[in-house]
């Protein structure tokens, strides 16, 4: 993550301009230019039992806040400022979620293991497995499977829920970091929902659309997007949590 002198100058100019006009296109460009930093920092937290994808999203939220709050006239480099904000966001993520505290390690491991079991069994059976089938395959009890699912989803996203304070244009992340999926253009609902949904990362928007508008099952979405069903499940739960909180913030 490094810029040459010319790029740095360009970014400095954009920050100054953004500080004055709060232009959303500019904001999108500034965010995009620093996504590498967010990803880099997310990786540093990736050995704590959290999927990297999730961490990158958390870091991106931190980046977004940093772009919005950065005051170029203070003479601090943006990367310094942003690093601080992003790391803060990542730490808060772990703290809020309290994964390590609340979910016994055994349950965390079982949850991670179940991800593979679900996808293997789904493929083998040609349908979604039942809980007893999962339990048998994983050689644990049904209760343990259910407990692990709950442990894995014990995500508390209070820190991610709302746009940052003073964020007057909360919908521009979706608009600039990824166009709203054209499929999203479900005529009737689109108008009302776009501002809310556009705040979500592109992939979450896509998953919401596939599940709730296209009617695909979680397992179908998982295979279409090439990610695990557990991940689909987590992202869905998380998106809904964020939407609810965002609505209350308004």
């Amino acid at each position, binding site marked *: 993550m490094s810029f040459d002198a010319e790029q740095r100058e360009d970014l400095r100019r954009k920050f100054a301009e953004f500080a004055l006009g709060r232009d959303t296109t500019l904001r999108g460009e500034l965010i995009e230019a620093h996504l590498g930093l967010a990803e880099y920092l997310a990786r540093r937290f990736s050995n704590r039992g959290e999927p990297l994808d999730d961490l990158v999203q958390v870091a991106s939220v931190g980046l977004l806040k940093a772009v919005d709050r950065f005051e170029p006239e203070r003479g601090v480099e943006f990367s310094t400022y942003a690093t601080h904000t992003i790391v803060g966001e990542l730490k808060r993520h772990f703290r809020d979620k309290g994964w390590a505290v609340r979910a016994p390690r055994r349950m965390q491991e079982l949850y991670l293991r179940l991800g593979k079991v*679900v996808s293997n069994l*789904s493929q083998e059976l040609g*349908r*979604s*497995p*039942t*809980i*007893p089938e*999962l339990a048998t395959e994983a050689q644990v009890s*049904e*209760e343990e*499977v*259910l*407990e692990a*699912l*709950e442990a894995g*989803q*014990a995500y508390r996203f209070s820190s991610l*829920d709302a746009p940052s304070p003073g964020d007057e244009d909360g919908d521009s992340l979706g608009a600039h970091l990824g166009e709203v999926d054209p499929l999203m253009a479900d005529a009737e*609902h689109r108008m*009302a*929902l776009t*501002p*809310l*949904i556009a705040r979500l990362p592109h992939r979450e928007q896509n998953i919401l659309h596939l*599940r*709730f*508008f296209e*009617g695909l*099952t*979680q*397992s*179908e979405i998982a295979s279409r997007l090439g990610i695990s*069903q557990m991940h689909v*499940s987590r992202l*869905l*739960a998380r998106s*809904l*949590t964020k*939407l*609810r*909180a*965002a*609505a*209350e913030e*308004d």
Partner: protein
Amino acid sequence: MPSQDEVRLAVPATPEFLRLARVTASGLASRLGFTFDEVEDLRLAIDELCFILIGTRGRDGVVELRYAMVPGALEVEGVGSFTDGGGNGHHSESATELALAAFSQQILSALLDDYAVYRNDEGKSCFRLLKRRGTTGNP
């Protein structure tokens, strides 16, 4: 008294206790032979409906849940009894909340076979849901 095919649960009306509502639902769904997909749908739906009752910050009071196992399906009823007056439940009608309400309906109809959100005779916020086995992920 609950009948033999019924489980009742009363939890504080705050988000951290919704876990119990979900675990109970998934435990019963598992007994009924629901698939993983169906259990996951049910968990999301319980969350969605409970949040409609209590809002994301919770309320003072309790949510009473009644889970009824009927052949091939699970029915859940939730009744909110709150002591904090209006609170931040589903009364407010900002444009965003209305939009979310529309989306909520879309979500719930994708997840469930039937549901309703209503006020009972005593004016309490309630929901009812029906989730059948064998309607998700088994084309």
